[in-house]
């Protein structure tokens, strides 16, 4: 019995080692280079398709010896958690998507990300980009480690028919906006639909008043621990947020992105805040005159004006310093050369200056928004989740929902945010 067991074990060991040796020989052969991109972009969305198209072209030009592997996690909170876990485990992908957040700063400090600003300057590609698109990607100290692939304005879409039926005009100031909401609410219309599940659309409303009053200065100070949520600007933000929160649809905390948008397009809500990346969805209703848009209303005595609102270049693309070799650099340059036209041809605003492709017909809406983008001011609203550390961000995200429904009061919210910031500052 013992002899047979020993024989069996030996046989397994021999076969096992032969198989492994075979594999190693196979690996020693010339294999195509694979670059992995861990992406937080919707699958089959414009960016995903554009980059894949460019990667295919690039691969063809290099006889298939190079290819891009795209792994997508479109739900942003899950993406960030997965990214953090991968990096903690020492498995950072070659290319990642990240905003210029405190976590990104930690990666920079650990030397894990390529200095994109330096790279673009070295390659002479810096001026190929729209300046605001680049400015959005920068940290407060002016350094930039992420490459923009989008360029957006965010606006408030409104239903013209509902407005006409209820005799309300497009609001020019924040107070007028609240009045319009009240009038609509009195008439039994849901004034605003919002996606509560993804949290960020709700937080936009919290960021509006502070942006009007101070630009991004308040949130920068807050995130660095030099201001309190209970300061006047913070409270102004909270108060506006509480007022407008009353006009969100019932159960907004459980409404997802698609449902909130569908509500608006079906005429079940009068207004919907979303960026120009949804032009394709808004196209038809815009063309038959049902909907239109206006930008963030102004506030008297405010720092930022009517042509200043949320302009962003989305989550940026960052590169792992360890794997940023000649082949990857060549690919990045190739992207910058070809991305603008391809992306614009998908009815998107491109952060890379380029002429519009002639073979594609652009709608009036697209051209109008493109014009608007040429007239924006110097200040742009940068989303709060780009400034706050992960823990404070989670606290704000979760509790803003309760603040909007009136389930917690202003002071409780201020305490919670200040405690989270305190934890961050004390290095907990």
């Amino acid at each position, binding site marked *: 019995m013992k002899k047979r067991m020993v024989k069996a074990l030996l046989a397994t060991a021999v076969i096992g080692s032969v198989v492994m040796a075979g594999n190693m020989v196979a690996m020693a052969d010339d294999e195509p280079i694979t670059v992995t991109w861990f992406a937080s972009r919707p699958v089959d969305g414009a960016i995903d398709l554009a980059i894949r198209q460019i990667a295919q072209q690039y691969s063809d030009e290099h006889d298939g010896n190079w290819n891009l592997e795209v792994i997508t996690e479109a739900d942003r*909170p899950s993406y*960030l*958690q997965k990214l*953090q*876990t991968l*990096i*903690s485990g020492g498995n950072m992908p070659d290319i990642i998507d990240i905003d210029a957040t405190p*976590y990104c700063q*930690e*990666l920079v400090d*650990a030397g*894990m990300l390529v200095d994109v600003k330096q790279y673009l300057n070295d390659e002479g590609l810096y001026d190929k980009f729209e300046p605001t698109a680049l400015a959005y990607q920068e940290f407060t100290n002016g350094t930039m480690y992420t490459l923009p692939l989008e360029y957006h304005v965010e606006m408030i879409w409104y239903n013209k028919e509902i407005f006409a039926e209820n005799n309300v005009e497009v609001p020019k100031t924040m107070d007028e906006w609240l009045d319009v909401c009240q009038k609509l609410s009195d008439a039994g219309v849901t004034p605003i639909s919002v996606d*509560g599940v993804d949290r960020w659309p709700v937080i936009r409303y919290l960021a509006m008043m502070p942006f009007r009053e101070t630009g991004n200065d308040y949130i920068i100070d807050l995130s660095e621990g030099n201001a309190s949520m209970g300061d006047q600007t913070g409270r102004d933000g909270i108060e506006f947020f509480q007022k407008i929160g009353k006009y969100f*649809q*019932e*159960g*907004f*905390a*459980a*409404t997802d992105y698609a*449902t909130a948008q569908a*509500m608006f397009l079906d005429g079940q809500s009068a207004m919907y805040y979303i960026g120009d990346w949804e032009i394709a969805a808004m196209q038809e209703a815009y063309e038959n005159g049902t909907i239109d848009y206006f930008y963030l209303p102004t506030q008297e005595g405010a720092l930022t004006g009517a042509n200043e609102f949320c302009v962003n270049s989305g989550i940026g693309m960052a590169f792992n310093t360890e794997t940023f070799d000649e082949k990857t650099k060549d690919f990045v340059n190739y992207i910058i050369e070809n991305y603008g036209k391809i992306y614009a041809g998908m009815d998107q605003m491109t952060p890379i200056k380029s002429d519009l492709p002639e073979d594609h017909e652009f709608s009036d809406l697209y051209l109008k928004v493109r014009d608007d983008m040429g007239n924006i001011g110097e200040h742009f609203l940068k989303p709060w989740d780009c400034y706050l550390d*992960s*823990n404070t961000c*989670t606290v704000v995200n*979760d*509790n803003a*929902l*309760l603040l909007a*429904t009136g*389930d*917690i009061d202003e002071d409780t919210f201020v305490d919670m945010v200040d405690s989270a910031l305190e934890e961050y500052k004390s*290095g*907990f």
Partner: protein
Amino acid sequence: MNGILKNKKAFLVFLLPALVFYLVSVFYPIAESIRFSFIKWGGLGPKQFVGLQNYVHLFKDKIFYTAFWNNLGYLVIVVGMQILIGLLLAVLLTYLTKGVTLIKTLYYVPCIITAVAVTQLFRSMYATQPEGIINQLLKAIGLGQFATSWLTNVKTVLVCVSIPEGWRYTGMYMVIFYAALISLDPEVCEAARIDGANGWQTLIRVKLPMIKEVMLLTLTMVLTGALRGFDIPFVLTNGGPGNVSELMSTYMYKKAFAGNQFGYGSTIAVFIIIESILVVCVLKVLFTGKDEREERRIQKEQRRMRRKGK
């Protein structure tokens, strides 16, 4: 073949692989979690030893207490549904003569549906936009004033998040209790009937005490499972809105993976482990009757005397 089964060394050889796997995949991570709870680490850079700082922070953390009490509420509902309803269904099933297997299979089906599917099912049921089946039903029978957005109403969200978990495993416990009930010696129940006990008395005074061991097992499974409940609450509401439906496991996940506080997250995990162990110990004590305890004490004494006598 018989020789192997009698050989004690053979037992060890056959048990060893599974034991090793268990140690590596369960024990070692638990030990690491305990080690991490004394460390501060954000995922990058060096790990910093901070002693009991995380534990001190834990006992001062208001949201942790919210999560703790929420977890107890969740536990009550889940245990109530799985044990009480499971037992009720099992008892009813014992009176059934035809179609037992069919009923068992149908009731067991929820256990094998994935958690995400169950979540989607209940999310749609609870929704207001488009209107879910619960609100539709309430309006149809004239109780429209109770229709609400169940998952965002702070008064109802915790209960609504607990129900899917309770519903899911009721069938499994029904099957376990049923198997236990039908394996009972029918002569004992006969004897009780002859002594004049009616159906209800037979159930409460005779049958249930006889399945005490099974009860202990199921209670252990349900309680420890409820203390670690995660998947359905996490996907349904992610502890929201605010922290109203936050459970200890979702809070642990948030702190460790969303908030990048791996040390503090591990501390919460250690708390959950200790709580689960305590619950099981308490259960064992409760279920060990006075007679059994007396018996065990006597046996211990006898062993001691024997050893002394040697």
